[in-house]
């Protein structure tokens, strides 16, 4: 059977690529410390020596559109082209090509459907920065095959937070039942408090630092119950209008397990959002 060797939850910040590669006067003052933190975070994945990555993210109205919007979708393709015109334009992200792990995609789809998740699938999926950002930060050599899992945190009606947690638990069980002698890491990215296209966007901190502190505590301590007792689809409007992306963190808490402290936690306050990085090593400890 496959072994789940790391569970990683992270924010995905599309400005990281440009900030970390800029030089001279173009290099923002927060870049050096950001790079240092990301490289330390990267080491937590490297040490786990994964063979395959399951990547949880959310399409930002790139390929998926309101005329046919899936709630949860698993990519099943041998190859994924990545990044879109407006991500090149706004963030300077490069076009990328990732290899797919199609047999694990098939296993997640079959097992997910049988477990009661009516997963959509795509045989030709172009992935966006919710998945390429963690490749850039955590595995810049881009040498591992992936299975992309997309969630709808964007286009209401959305699934409820509980459903994200349940799907995370199911993904874990399915990875651990994949009959292949491979080391799998599950990596998911979302947001803490975030506002985009509203009056609280691009402030000196994230729109709700108090929510961010609570969120980091919930995630870092694996407090799924506490998190679910406070977080609802309605409540997520309060910390910022794009904060429903926090549900991807909740999915990752489901993968990691109830009450399990993260083995690695780091945060970084940027001018309009807080970065947050978490790694768990399943089966009790470091690789």
């Amino acid at each position: 059977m496959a072994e789940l060797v790391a569970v990683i939850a992270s924010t995905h910040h599309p400005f990281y690529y440009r900030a970390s590669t800029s030089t001279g006067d173009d290099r923002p003052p927060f870049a050096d410390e950001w790079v240092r933190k990301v490289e330390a975070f990267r080491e937590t994945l490297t040490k786990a020596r994964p063979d395959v990555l399951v990547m949880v993210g959310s399409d930002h109205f790139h390929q998926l559109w309101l005329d046919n919007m899936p709630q949860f979708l698993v990519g099943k393709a041998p190859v994924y082209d990545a990044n879109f015109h407006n991500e090149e334009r706004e963030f300077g992200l490069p076009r990328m090509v990732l290899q797919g792990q199609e047999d694990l995609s098939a296993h997640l789809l079959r097992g997910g459907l049988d477990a009661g998740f009516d997963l959509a699938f795509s045989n030709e999926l172009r992935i966006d920065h919710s998945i390429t950002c963690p490749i850039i930060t955590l595995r810049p050599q881009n040498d591992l095959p992936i299975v992309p899992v997309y969630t709808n945190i964007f286009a209401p009606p959305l699934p409820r937070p509980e459903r994200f947690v349940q799907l995370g638990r199911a993904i874990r069980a399915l990875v651990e039942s994949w009959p292949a002698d491979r080391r799998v890491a599950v990596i998911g990215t979302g947001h803490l408090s975030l506002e985009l296209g509203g009056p609280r966007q691009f402030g000196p901190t994230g729109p709700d630092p108090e929510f961010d502190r609570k969120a980091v505590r919930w995630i870092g301590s694996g407090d799924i119950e506490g998190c679910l007792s406070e977080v609802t689809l309605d409540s997520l409007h309060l910390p910022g209008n794009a904060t429903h992306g926090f549900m991807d963190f909740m999915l990752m808490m489901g993968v990691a397990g109830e009450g399990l402290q993260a083995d690695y936690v780091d945060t970084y306050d940027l001018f309009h959002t807080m970065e947050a990085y978490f790694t768990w090593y399943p089966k009790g400890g470091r690789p």
Partner: protein
Amino acid sequence: MSKYLLNKFLFTVDRDAELVERYREDPRATVTWWEEEYANRILNCVTGESSTWLRFDEAEREALATHDYVTLFEMGAHPFLTLTLFIGLFERDHPPMGFQTEYARRLAHMSLPYPDIAT
């Protein structure tokens, strides 16, 4: 009112570099053209299988024709789509982050709950 159609305009213009420039230079003519030629296209169908029923109301048409992102927000257009397209249109005219902070300031009168964005 059709939040869906507003979003469809923002989405289809944003992903087409040539349309972004047309909308920047001549927004009213671009909106008129788009409503006639594009609004009813089903994006995953051939043109002979278009819809027949999608049109803007006057207020929506006017908000788009005047680049009025504040009114689009008030109408419940998807804030991410609006922001992304308008950054593509106007960020170039401002110092770094200048457009984004002005955008926030112009929406400062909005308080929670924000307009519903469900389509």
